[in-house]
């Protein structure tokens, strides 16, 4: 924290530094932002199983955990807004001075990276693959479970992708979310169009409704244009 000022007994202004322990607590919490982002991605993957497939619940678990992932990744940039509100919240520089706190930060980071992300997430993904088979036995689509398994297996690369979009400006949170939207629209949805065509053929063979899959495939290929169309209508 920035040094604050107070009045000394004889009236002159005297600089007062923040207690080192408070600064170390701040450093500890900021150091835990990265593992917290990884945990949010894990929870997003689990929520994706409930809400994924052909459903996307806006404001549901998946989008909420993805939002918090972005917030944790861009936390220092988000904190840089506070001085403009009159709150001195400049993140402390340097490493954690108190030994046991540095140890706690390192241990928790190590726990999340090596245990949760590298060991627990692949096991959860394997259970989702098992669940995909059970989904088929249940008569429902296995796609939600398979996609959730893929999401869990790709947590480290997704986190590094999100970190790569952080432009370190005060607007970084919104910019990362915008980059995520662009990535989903330009990279993921054109592939999803192929899946929609496969679903249409399958539904056609079973004499079920299939035109909405074709319309969805067309929509997946034109989301950016639809966005521009909506914006143009607002002018």
């Amino acid at each position: 924290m920035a040094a604050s000022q107070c009045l000394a007994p004889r009236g002159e202004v005297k600089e007062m530094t923040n207690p080192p322990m408070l600064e170390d607590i701040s450093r500890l919490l900021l150091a835990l932002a990265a593992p917290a982002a990884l945990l949010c991605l894990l929870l997003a993957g689990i929520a994706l199983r409930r809400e994924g497939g052909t459903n996307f619940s806006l404001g549901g678990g998946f989008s909420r955990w993805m939002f918090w992932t972005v917030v944790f990744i861009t936390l220092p940039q988000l904190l840089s807004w506070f001085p403009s509100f009159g709150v001195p919240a400049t993140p402390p520089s340097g490493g954690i001075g108190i030994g046991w706190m540095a140890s706690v930060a390192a241990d928790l980071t190590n726990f999340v990276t090596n245990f949760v992300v590298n060991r627990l997430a692949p096991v959860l993904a394997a259970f989702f693959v098992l669940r995909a088979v059970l989904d088929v036995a249940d008569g429902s689509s296995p796609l939600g479970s398979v996609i959730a398994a893929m999401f869990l297996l790709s947590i480290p690369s997704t986190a590094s992708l999100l970190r790569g979009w952080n432009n370190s400006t005060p607007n970084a949170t919104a910019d990362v979310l915008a980059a995520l939207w662009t990535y989903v629209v330009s990279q993921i949805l054109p592939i999803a169009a192929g899946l929609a065509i496969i679903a249409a053929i399958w539904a056609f063979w079973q004499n079920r409704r299939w035109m909405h899959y074709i319309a969805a495939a067309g929509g997946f290929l034109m989301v950016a244009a639809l966005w521009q169309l909506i914006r143009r209508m607002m002018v």
Partner: protein
Amino acid sequence: MSFYNGFLHLTNWLGNVIMPTMAGLLFAVAIVRYSKGYPWNYSMWAAVAALCVSGLLRAMETFSSQLAWNDPDLVWNALLNLINWVGNVFLPVYAGSQVVLAAATYVNVGHWMPGSAWLRHLTAAGLCLLASGVLRLAEFFVTNGTSGV
């Protein structure tokens, strides 16, 4: 391991490996349904579509990529391209098939094809023995029909 690669490979595997393989099964189902006098068209056309998943996706991409990706007119233009293709490519081909059916009906083929059980069973037996050939023929048509869009 990235989500993009996993999703891309899943779609490629389903579209280019599983669906063409399933086309053989769908043709077999169509032949069996034909032999029993059940509606068989859905299975046959699904088999043809299963052979050209990539082609159908490329067709949709072609319809929806004639303007810049962020052009607001792209939605209208994609619909226009689809309707142009239906009107100028699909309907003329369909007209040809209707002329053939008209000629067949005129010479009374239409009377003995669906009505005669012996001919249906005989045709079904021939199709059962030619199932692989029918699949190869459909693959040939799909492979050589890439200039339609």
